[in-house]
């Protein structure tokens, strides 16, 4: 079975695609961009973590979550809490009524660090929390939903409600969370100034490496029996259940995995941008993240990365050139992509560009292109995909 092409971790074609993305992320972008633009792309790539998770949950598993910002935010806040505590030394905060606590607590008349902030003095604990907190939260939500067989639109609506609830909670508890302003003015990570250009560049590469780790993990899941079961569940959930599989457990697992990816992305966001705020937790960013995955192609993990980069790059460029009209341009881009290529950029590649290229090079004798399920970076084309 190990030699079966379908079960190999990467086909030759996929290996090429991974290598191309690696070249883009680790060579082309760093060489072509100045530190400021590179930092921007680093920020975009943090959203790609979420998009990869969405490809697994939504594209493969059929679980559309409109609340991934929650996990991104939880990861980001865990990181921000550590950095904020490090920045709030008694010397730096001597001007406050209570020196040594984060500035926003002081503004809110809090005079002692709340107990649940205490563990975030530890870097190890904080890094662990970046992954564990989102996963535990996703597990609770997942158990509550999937064990009761809540799915489809209802699940999407509930995740959206959770995003709204968490935003309100963060804003309402501003003494403990920084409220609307978020947690700002983060400076050092274990004594290392994260605001310098060198640090930003280093963080960019750490971010890229973590992204590839997540990509490989996602690819592993897709290639495993679990990945095929997910697709089977998406297309015929009842049949999988009647075959004796515990559908809910698989869904919970993939939902938690997506949350873990998002949490890592959030932490990297905090490190590279230098703050975390509830605007990254709520409904709007959560839906934006779904758009990244949709534009890139919700069936392709690499497509999701490209989609994220494209949409964010367009967002920045449009808004710099047309500060008052850019939202329209962005909307047009999204509509154009989704109308013309329902499977996003990856679909455009595997359905339009590759078959034609093959025809061109093989003189028309090529095998019928999209029939092979492993074209375009493991794009597993579902029969029902167009109907969804």
């Amino acid at each position, binding site marked *: 079975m190990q030699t079966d092409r379908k079960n190999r971790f990467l086909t030759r074609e996929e290996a090429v695609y991974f290598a191309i993305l690696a070249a883009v992320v680790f060579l082309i972008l760093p060489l072509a961009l100045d530190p400021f633009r590179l930092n921007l792309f680093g920020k975009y790539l943090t959203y790609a973590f979420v998009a990869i998770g969405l490809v697994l949950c939504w594209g493969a598993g059929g679980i559309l979550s409109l609340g991934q910002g929650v996990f991104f935010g939880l990861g980001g806040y865990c990181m921000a809490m550590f950095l904020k505590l490090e920045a709030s030394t008694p010397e730096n905060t001597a001007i406050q*009524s209570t020196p040594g606590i984060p500035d*926003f607590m002081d503004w809110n008349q809090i005079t002692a660090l709340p107990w649940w902030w205490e563990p975030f003095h530890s870097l190890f604990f904080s890094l662990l929390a970046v992954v564990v907190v989102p996963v535990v939260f996703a597990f609770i939500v997942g158990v509550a939903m999937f064990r009761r067989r809540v799915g489809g639109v209802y699940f999407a609506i509930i995740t959206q409600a959770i995003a709204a609830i968490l935003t309100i909670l963060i*804003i309402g508890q501003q003494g403990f969370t920084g409220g*609307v*302003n978020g947690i700002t003015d983060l400076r050092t990570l274990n004594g290392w100034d994260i605001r310098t250009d060198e640090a930003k560049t280093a963080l960019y590469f750490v971010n890229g490496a973590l992204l590839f780790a997540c990509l490989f993990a996602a690819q592993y899941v897709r290639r495993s029996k679990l990945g095929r079961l997910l697709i089977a569940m998406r297309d015929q959930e009842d049949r999988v259940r009647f075959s004796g599989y515990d559908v809910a457990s698989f869904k919970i697992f993939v939902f938690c995995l997506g949350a873990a990816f998002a949490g890592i992305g959030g932490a990297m966001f905090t490190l590279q*941008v230098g703050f975390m705020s509830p605007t990254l937790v709520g409904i709007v960013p959560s839906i934006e993240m779904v758009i990244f995955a949709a534009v890139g192609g919700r069936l392709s993990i690499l497509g999701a990365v490209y989609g994220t980069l494209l949409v964010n790059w367009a967002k920045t460029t449009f808004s710099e050139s047309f500060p008052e009209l850019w939202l329209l341009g962005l909307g047009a881009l999204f509509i154009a992509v989704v109308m013309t290529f329902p499977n996003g950029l990856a679909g455009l590649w595997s359905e339009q560009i590759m078959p034609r290229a093959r025809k061109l090079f093989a003189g028309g004798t090529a095998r019928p292109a999209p029939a092979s399920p492993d074209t375009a970076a493991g794009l597993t084309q579902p029969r029902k995909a167009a109907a969804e």
Partner: protein
Amino acid sequence: MTDSSKPTMPGVSRRAVLAGGAALTASLFAPKGLRAQDFPTAAVNTTGLAVTDDTVTIGILHSVTGTMAISETGSVQAEKLAIEQINAQGGILGRKIEYIQEDGASDWPTFAEKAKKLLVNDKVASVMGCWTSASRKAVLPVFEQYNGFLYYPTFYEGLEQSPNVIYTGQEATQQIIAGLDWVNQTKGAKTFYLLGSDYIWPRTSNKIARKHIENFMEGCEVVGEEYYPLGHTQFNSVINKIRLRKPDVIYAIVVGGSNVAFYKQLKAAGIDMTEEKPILLTISVTEDEIRGIGGENIEGAYACMKYFQSLENDNNLEFVKAFKEMWGDDMVIGDVTQAAYLGPWLWKAAVEKAGSFDVDKVREASPGIELTSAPEGYVKVHENHHLWSKTRVGRAKADGQYEVVYETADLVEPDPFPEGYQ
């Protein structure tokens, strides 16, 4: 002041120095600007800012899309007007101001991104921008790291004093204390009901109001204090409580879209503000907000600001006229719009005093800068980077304008870290 520009500017003609001194007062319609050839670029720009022999580039960073766009548009318009007027007079040190406008999109990370772009890529000499505290907090580390210079127009909660920001709006004590004293002394108000939207500005402001009422106003007390999430639209329960407790004053710091619901529901509940039972005193409703609320819904309420469009002085009449000529007759001008208008003028005066665009020199020159041409009247930059301004109370009329009923005799000193109010 001429002394301070001499060492940095060898070879400056006596005439130019005198002109520089005269420009400190920055008379709005001074006939002549300074000549660029008297200020060689190499001398006025030693840190690589976007300054050429005939232009200097600054940034404008506000939200023109998203929920804050409606509030921030007035600031953008005022800043562009000021820039145009300065250019018409010959610019700054003989250089025309060009601007690069970026959209913060009502999103704090975007503000940080764009601020960095303006400072790092575009090397702008200064930035006029931000509106909400959240956006200012987001860009602050960027300005401090890259040594940018920001003119921030909004009245805000205080508790901040950055070397890289000039705060052209009022900090909280400037907006609150005089208004409370006025309502106590002229209206005999003794009991206050505080309410606001739930974020740092209303909370900090109400904290200062409460301390002032309890510690400094004899026989006065706070009978209620409540907060509602941003965007909240159901105020019936608090209105019922207000009717039960019968405070002399409702002290309201409700912001944004919530305002519309709040004032309409107050009116619907039979609280007629023109009868002053109770008096409504707000620090969050400018002429801009009244357009959304509707003048008939807020008629009779009092607002405590430093500027009202209806101020009758020559500076303001000119300003309102020029603003409407540029942006249309139906425009209204609120407190923050006027404060935003001061930004480019204050920067001009500071640059000319310093004889340089270098941020460090402009910062050094800023305290003590005076503007006699401000629409609100005379203002002066304090050592703490805030402005000395008068506090005024206006009464809302049905046509959406305020009638000024009180102003402090002297300028009120800015005090961003007020003792006794923490």
